[in-house]
């Protein structure tokens, strides 16, 4: 038996790495005015982000390249390789919430420099939150690296099945557009194999 479990945390608790933020901005390092801007953006995103995740444990049944994962069947060599030897896996969806999208949209209209820094800060935050979720999932067990749909040959169309399976729309407000884009924008779904 597995539950659809829920994780949330206060965004302020997520410690963001400035180097990562600079990397998303395609920069090696930052100086004066830019550091100030990044600091301001970190505070602003932390003030409105609402990190939430849902996850469930599923059994992994592999037949050649076809994997049966609880939410549906997936044909993906890369994912099969990633999950090789795993009897079970976690499926999760993590998001920072719609207010982050609204904030970035707002600044992209009035101050694009701030918008792209906010965007990079939010990217760093969702990654950090995924790590946070990973740490909780990985307590007392060893996990494989996260694998998301859209990576390699893992078809992005499985996004719909994953979100339905986790009831992500109702529980954490994650919607899928016709173009398979998720909103809120800072949302990640992933499969994490549990190593035996």
């Amino acid at each position, binding site marked *: *038996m*597995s*539950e*659809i479990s*829920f994780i*949330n945390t206060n965004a302020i608790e997520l410690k963001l790495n400035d180097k990562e933020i600079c990397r998303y*901005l*395609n*920069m090696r390092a930052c100086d004066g*005015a*830019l550091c100030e*801007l990044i600091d301001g953006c970190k505070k602003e995103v932390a003030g409105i982000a*609402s990190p*939430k995740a849902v996850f*469930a444990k599923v059994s992994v049944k592999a037949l050649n390249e076809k994997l049966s994962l*609880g939410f549906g069947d997936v044909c993906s060599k890369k994912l099969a390789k990633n999950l090789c030897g795993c009897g079970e896996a976690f499926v999760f969806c993590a998001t920072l*919430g*719609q*207010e982050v*999208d*609204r904030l*970035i*949209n*707002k600044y*992209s*209209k*009035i*101050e*694009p*420099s701030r*918008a*792209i*820094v906010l*965007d990079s800060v939010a990217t760093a935050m969702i990654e950090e939150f995924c790590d946070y979720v990973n740490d909780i999932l990985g307590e007392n067990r060893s996990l494989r690296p996260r694998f998301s749909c859209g990576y390699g040959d893992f078809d*992005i169309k499985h996004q719909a099945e994953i979100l339905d399976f986790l*009831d992500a*729309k*109702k*529980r*954490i*407000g994650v*919607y899928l*557009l*016709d*173009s*398979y*884009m998720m*909103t809120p*924008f800072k949302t990640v779904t992933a499969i994490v194999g549990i190593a035996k």
Partner: protein
Amino acid sequence: MDLLTQILSKYVFFDGAMGTELQRYGIKPGESSESWNIKNPEIITKIHRAYFEAGANIATANTFGANPLKLDNYEEVIFSAIENAKRAISAPEQYVALDIGPTGKLLAPLGDLDFEDAVSAFACTVKAGTEAGADLILIETMSDPYEMKAAVLAAKENSTLPIFATFVLDENGKTVTGCDISAMVALLEGLGVSAIGVNCSLGAEQLMEFIPELVASSSLPIIVNPNAGLPAIINGKTFYKQTPAEFGEYMEKIAGMGARCLGGCCGTTPEHIKEVVSRLKGKQPLAIEKKSRTVVSSYAKACVFENKAVLIGERINPTGKPKLKAALRENDIDYLIKEALAQEENGANMLDVNVGLPEIDEKSVLCQAVKEIQAVSTLPLQIDTSNVDALEASLRIYNGKPLVNSVNGKEESMRAVFPIVKKYGGAVIALTLDENGIPSTAPQRAEIARRIIEKASEYGIEKKDIIVDPLCLTVSSDKDAPSVTLEAIRIIKSELGVKTSLGISNVSFGLPARDYVNSVFFSHALLCGLDAVILNPFSNEMKKAYFAHNALAGIDEGCISYIEYASAFASDSASVAASNQTLDGAIIKGLKKEAKELATSLIKEKKPLEIVNEHIIPALDTVGKRYEEGKIFLPQLLMSAETATVAFEVIKEALKANDRSSKGDIILATVKGDIHDIGKNIVKVILQNYGFTVHDLGKDVSPEKILEYAKANQIKLIGLSALMTTTVSSMEKTIKLFKESGYAAKFVVGGAVLTPEYAEMIGADKYAKDAMDTVRYAQEILN
């Protein structure tokens, strides 16, 4: 006794889950529960009967997802579902609800479903359900207030059945779209539903925390239909663990808090409902208290007219504002957005939106302005127009409960405005003038207010939704004008018991240093109990009066707001420019405040064009070059570009129109299916800085719209942006459509997943790796 009478005098019980029961009868994971209405009608009836036997009054028909967006045979499904439920009725006080769940899609602007498409989809369900004989409409499990509004409107427009509406809260007491309880209540009460409440998502235990706020903010019967605890999955099926006894215990507590209609959602069974009914049957529920709060709302939060006066920003109104007029004529909605956000930043609680200009299509521009402002601001809006069509169209697409500006005592005005306010659930500003003009005495103005309130009630609009503006005339032409207005505020408040609002600035017309007069008059009006003011949020004199008044009147606990305002005010007025800074240097470093001051002082010494050619352009060139050499990065490039814009703004007024002619026109659009346009907006700022005229068509733009716009404006360069591989196909379609039409244009494309090869494959003329690359290409093509 009919349902609506019953609900006023005693508890009404909803049924529990349908899905959970269907699992018991063997529905397979992934199988649509609605299909069982036709496949296994007798099982559906049996489930409804079990709930009625458990004591439920309302059977929720199995139509949750029966809308044309999800099911092709939705009509057939609805007819059989209602019939299946009706067959289960065996006693009085048993009813069948047409169940309407969300479409499953997110509405624009954050999602890709158009508001009117949502209304149409819900309308199909409502029509079928009403015709099939449902007794009421239950709109449930909504988490987006905008989708909720679409569903309620569809119900109101296509049926006369009572509407019950419930929404989903998360553990923070908001919907996942960020709407709080008060805002959702304001919206639903405004739209005139019969009962409201919460369902699903959380169990009764978790929901309990939010019931007091729900009861305190609403005058309607409250519905609570929680899940049986939190879910678990066993062999791919979802299960809920709470026992009927536990569930019943929590529900009894919830009833004790003032909830009136009780039932269950996911995981609840007839046993759960039976437990709730047996604990409450025969008991007298708490009385439903009528609230008289005046409240309006945005998609996220409510603005309540109580204690502190509500500050309504007046800056989005073209009267006397040439820049705004020009922006409206050029359809430069971004200018309005900037005005909106600057007012929000400067402490406005609401924004007045008036786009009335004779030469524009007010209806379409007003709707566009409302949508775009609501996409970025959480403030409720005051919709300000005398064009009835524009008013109706904008109230319809408004996300929340709007404030309408305005109605007056003329019969014609009331006849036109009240039906619209009632239908779309707004509050309205009532001006105390009528066919005979503005009366000269306060009692006469109060008399008009009384007549307006009386007339409004004939349309079903309550007194709490009327905010009277007793009007203020110019003191320089009539020395008694201000005291008449103040007296009118007092009478209207004490005798009629309604809220008041005032546009202050008219009082000082014709006088020098008007802000001084305005702010003192404002203080006087506040002392008379004024509840809202339409003002310029950038006026420090008005803000000083406001914060000082609140502190003195004892409505600013610990004078905290005053202290915060005063300290920000002090630090703002200090000069920021360092003595040895140059304008070029400020632009290169991206220092906006400094650039503004330096440009302001430079303009005293140099001609505007000299400043542009000798300082701004060279600085931008330096920055552009450094960026291309990899010495600085995108945020710095943008900071410099924004700083240059600030400097341009300062000297713009001094520049003659043809001094800085456009380098050429370019269309920018984020393609169909793609709703993230940050990349496009970056390119736009840089292109503008280099002197190009950018026609920004926005995001999720169809190929047809781009072609139509290009043709109409004869634009030969088009920039397209896409983020996902799935939306690059829209790019390809757009280019193809142009080629088929024979309209010659160049395409420059960019976006995260594009490569030069990919760009070539879809027929683009140029792949631009970043904003500077686009500028260089535009220079090559257009110069």
